[in-house]
């Protein structure tokens, strides 16, 4: 990098059990720092509303409702729940923010999957499910329906872990537009990234192009044929089995997901890409493709473990054309983010 390239300013902050980072291009340092502080305040505020771990958050209060009871929640909680319901419906139930109790049932204290019988599973599945959540946009109340076929007092456990961090990035971006900072990258522990404007040469953006290069495809870069994408005005989220072990459950079967080793989603908002990267882990490659056909603003890259004879060819990476269209090949030692 030449010395006269304007530097990026990077600011980090711990929230939502991860580290958020704001990377600002083309701004004076003090102004960028103040804007980042405003962003981190906003993320902390959102954590207070969305985190199920904070006992007074809207979500924690929601999780204490008895079936039949309602709670008026604030705008931000409602918007997350609404988007979660939409992704649930659009993916045929492959995304579900209420399946936490199933995960707990299936994993022992050390996080290893354990065998449970179909009968046990049927009982547990009866108690969860998005259809138990009734959202009323008229007065921003949420009602928990009794679970059909389960103990009538069973509460619901909503967990926005696969959508809240992305949502926080979207809200942060709104705030940064007030601050007139157009060229900025935000991420939540690298699992979701929102890239706005142009990172420029300092961010490793190829000459003559516009955006932020983001590393993608992980260990499967050779299979995918690229190891980065160039993003501007869009969000990228990744989900995989390599960080926390096999941690995704298919809400449609109640069993651990086995379709993909890793999945990346590009969408117009970080909340959506966050949710979709989780959903794409459990959907088949065909289902992912079909989702992207009907949602033109969404692009996907998934890695599947091949079975049978094809196994000797190794894992297979499949990207939608819109994903490939953004692909970059970063040389070793170059400055892809």
């Amino acid at each position, binding site marked *: 990098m030449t010395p006269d390239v304007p530097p990026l300013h990077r600011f980090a902050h711990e929230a939502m059990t991860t580290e958020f980072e704001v990377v600002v291009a083309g701004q004076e340092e003090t102004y960028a720092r103040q804007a980042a502080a405003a962003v981190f305040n906003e993320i902390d505020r959102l954590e207070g509303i969305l985190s199920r771990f904070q006992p007074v958050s809207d979500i924690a209060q929601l999780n204490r409702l008895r079936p039949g009871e309602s709670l008026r929640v604030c705008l931000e909680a409602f918007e997350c729940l609404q988007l979660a319901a939409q992704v649930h419906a659009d993916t045929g139930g492959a995304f579900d923010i209420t399946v936490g109790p199933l995960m707990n049932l299936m994993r022992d204290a050390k996080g290893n999957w354990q065998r449970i019988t179909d009968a046990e599973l049927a009982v547990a599945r009866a108690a969860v499910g998005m259809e138990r959540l009734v959202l*009323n946009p008229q007065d921003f109340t949420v009602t928990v329906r009794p679970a059909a076929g389960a103990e009538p007092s069973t509460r619901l456990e909503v967990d926005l872990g696969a959508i809240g961090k992305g949502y926080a990035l979207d809200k942060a971006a709104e705030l940064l537009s007030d601050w007139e900072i157009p060229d900025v990258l935000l991420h939540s522990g690298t699992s979701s990234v929102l890239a706005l404007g142009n990172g420029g040469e300092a961010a490793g953006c190829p000459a003559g192009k516009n955006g932020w290069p983001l590393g993608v495809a992980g260990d499967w870069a050779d299979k995918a044929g690229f190891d980065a994408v160039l993003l501007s005005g869009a969000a990228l989220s990744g989900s995989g089995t390599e960080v926390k072990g096999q941690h995704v459950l298919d809400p449609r079967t109640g069993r651990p997901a086995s379709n993909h080793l890793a999945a990346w989603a590009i969408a117009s908002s970080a909340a959506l890409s966050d949710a979709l990267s989780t959903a794409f882990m459990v959907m088949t490659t065909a289902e992912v493709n079909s989702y992207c056909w009907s949602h033109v603003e969404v692009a996907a890259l998934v890695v599947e473990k091949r079975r049978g004879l094809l196994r000797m060819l190794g894992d297979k990476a499949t990207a939608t054309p819109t994903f490939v269209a953004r692909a970059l090949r970063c040389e070793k030692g170059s400055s892809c983010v």
Partner: protein
Amino acid sequence: MSSNEKQNVDLKVDRRTFLQSAAAAGASLALSGNALAQAVAQPAKPATVAGPKGIDDLNVGVIGLGAQGQVLIEAASGIPGVKFKAVCDIWEYHQKLVGGRLKKTGHDVKLYEDYRELLAQEKDLDAVVVATPDWMHAEIANACMEAGKHVYCEKEMSNNLEKARSMVATQRKTGKLLQIGHQRRSNPRYIHAIDRLIREAKLLGRVTHAYAQWNRSVADPLGWPKKYAIEQAKLDKYGYVSMEQFRNWRWYKKYGGGPIVDLGSHQIDLFSWLWECNPSAIVAMGGADYYKGNEWYDNVMTIYEYHTPEGINRAYYQVLTTTKRGGFYEQFMGVNGALTISEVAARGDTVEREAHAPSWDEYAKKGWLKPVKEAIKPTTTRNVAVDVRVTAEAGKWPLPIELLKPAHQPHLENFFDAIRGRAKLNCPGEVAYETAVAVLKANDAVAAGRKMEFKHDEFKV
């Protein structure tokens, strides 16, 4: 062809139609609307925040929409019957942020820049929440009460005691309710700890000492989005020297009382609740030592002396703004045990028993404490005078009450219930005035560099 692949092909056909309709009428909305219909049921009950006023409904205005105003609005949003009708801030940016959120959640709310305009226009308000910088509290709260509104005003009542006294006087003259925002006074955890365990059950014996602190990490001055900078003429009109001072008013003597007032006031207020008396004397040290250009002390350490019927008790308080070590909590230390509590329960929520104290089992049985195993049991099996081993550690007994709503909500509920005639205010103006006298003296004591006495009638209006 698997069913999934078939579906894929079908969708490719659909996509052409989809794109055509998308061009015509925003098809992604049509799709998502359809999807949402499955999850969104018919309204369980009619809209409550914007419809006609019910018997328990209260029309509420908020003046001052900064960080604290936003916290109060969020805390009040969960209270049934609260209808926000008007919000006011001299900063257009905060009007836009807060007004936008309220409108999106169905509140039929009007935006104002000048509180006088709000009071002139809004004749149907029952109550006003005041969360401006401290120096404007008295003027605004007084005008609201004169206009017939009940007032919830943030602490500190004022950075000037004469102005704080005028609020109590106006309250008496108008008969309106004046609740001051020492929200721990309505927190069921604090009420249980202080009123029930310490004062009623005398669990700790005589509480000879108290300790409290609020420590925060180093922080930069607050900035503002360039395009929302307030023009100088408007800043002049409302009495702010500059945009920098407007955003960072807490550090300037004209507008606020500094960290000892912003943070310490909440906790020093507990000492007089605990001992049922006001302090008699204070020593304090502190200074504007770390941040350049700030007027107020960025660290204050103070000792208050309380002359109680039991004897002299003392309380130590510190506020630091350059380290978050230990965070914020309060500790009440008696001859039989110590109670540690914090507004965030994870930071303090236990009572420790001294080994010589009378048994607490009866309180555990009554549910006033959570039962725990004592850390060390007396040895009964061996015929020895003393069983020599590691130092006996006192048992830690968790408090039995959880607060499952935002910390400010019970205090607002208390205020709204008082308006409905169903409760007595937990922190009326007279009580908060006594706290203001105690807290503002800490700054005087730092400046004077010597022990200062309180006169008994200093606390009365």
